[in-house]
């Protein structure tokens, strides 16, 4: 039953995915609808062009991946009430300052919340509070339909993606090897390492470590 509903929702989403608004008409599309627009031309695959998307931020302003063409972009799947996100954005968490640190080097950081309405951590008001609570400087984009999350196969919060300056998806995986701050050996921040690899014009050496965390709270 759940599978049938999921398949049905994907079928319903296909026309949206096939009608990806160009950056030029994204703003017009956003003005026509209160709900965030979400469109992705296809499934994200490591080593291939990252699917473009347009989602509204918490002020209702549409933000497209293609707005950052020519820059490295980090996409962080986000649910402010997931314990792993709470830890990561907490005072001693690895995401507390990571985005701001890399912003100094021109790296764009986007948080995407694919939680469906009514699910944990979803909704405009909750996310507005979370931005203050976590002192986040980077935008949170709402993907309540889950179209973008499913196009990227985002499974957990946090699930991290890195798109390089050429628009290619070069990283899809865990934030680090320390869920809730617990690692068996030395702590490694995989996203930090991937960005360091890119800054040396090299390939990402560990492009897909298994993500951990809460499941993304998609609608059925």
């Amino acid at each position, binding site marked *: 039953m*759940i599978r049938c509903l*999921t398949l049905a929702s994907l079928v319903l989403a296909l026309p949206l995915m096939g009608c990806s608004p160009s950056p030029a008409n994204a703003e017009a599309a956003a003005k026509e609808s209160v709900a965030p627009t979400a469109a992705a031309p296809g499934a994200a695959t490591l080593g291939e062009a990252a699917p473009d998307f347009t989602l509204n931020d918490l002020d209702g302003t549409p933000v497209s991946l293609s707005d950052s063409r020519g820059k490295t972009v980090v996409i962080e799947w986000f649910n402010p*009430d997931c314990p792993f996100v709470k830890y990561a954005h907490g005072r001693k968490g690895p995401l507390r300052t990571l985005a701001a640190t890399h912003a100094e080097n021109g790296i764009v950081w986007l948080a995407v919340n694919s939680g469906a309405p009514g699910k944990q*951590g979803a909704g405009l008001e909750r996310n507005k509070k979370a931005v203050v609570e976590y002192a986040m400087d980077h935008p949170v984009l709402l993907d309540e339909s889950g179209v973008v999350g499913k196009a990227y196969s985002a499974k*957990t919060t946090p699930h991290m993606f890195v798109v390089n300056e050429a628009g290619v998806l070069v990283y899809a995986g865990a934030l680090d090897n320390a869920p809730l701050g617990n690692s068996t050996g030395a702590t490694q921040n995989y996203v930090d390492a991937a960005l360091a690899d890119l800054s040396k014009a090299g390939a990402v050496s560990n492009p897909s470590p*298994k993500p951990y*965390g809460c499941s993304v709270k998609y609608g059925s």
Partner: protein
Amino acid sequence: MTQLLPPRSAVWPLGVVLLAATLLPWGVSAETTPPEGPLVSMEVLSRPHDGGTRVGLRYRITPGWHIYWENPGDSGMATSASVTTSDGVTHSALQFPGPVAFEADGLVGYGYGGEGMLFLDLPPGTSGEVLVSSRWLVCREICQPESAEVRLDVTGRDDGAGMARFESTLPRAIEESDGVTVRRRAGTLVVTVSGAASATLFPSVELEAALGGKRPSFLSEEIVNSDAVLALRANLSGPSADGALHGVLRVDRATGPTFFALTAPPSPRSDP
């Protein structure tokens, strides 16, 4: 005698114990806040084993919630534990019984619902009090991290009766008489099982990556000597595909389920 100790954070009411099912519902309604208090309690047992001591960590899980196997699946976090002996040495090589699968919205998790036990073997000569620590993530639609520490005097202790039914679900090596074959042919993993009603592969993290995240199923393939044969064929690719790959195979026959430790041998081209 067993020692029942609650998680260090609080005491929780022990719930009704449920037998694990092969597929449990995950996500029954929109849930945004976990209930008050711990959702899992941990009890520690031990018995003599191979000249040393086997410790069993028994988790009683609130009905409808689950904790995770060593490969949690699409989301979650593997349950971890360690035992520190009186000489200060810490042991953390956990043994996981065969898991069950949870599925919702196209995401699959592996773990234990209702009740589960993990094992940790200590070397000969272990005696006195040991400190058992464990961390787990307990989830239904939403998740809550929990942990517990329990001290236990293992000297002369034998809780074998309380551990036996869980130990029977530890994966064991495949023997010739089991009717199971595991081969690697030109980048393809081939597993066959004869005379079984169903079979399920639970991949390790490495095998899951080598399978490209796909979850291949067993299909009825042929009849050999009047035995139906179930076969799984899956392409192996990715950076970890050439090494030895591991998983757990659940085989359901009329006598009940059996869990086997599955090992796909390394690719010939990875041999030295």
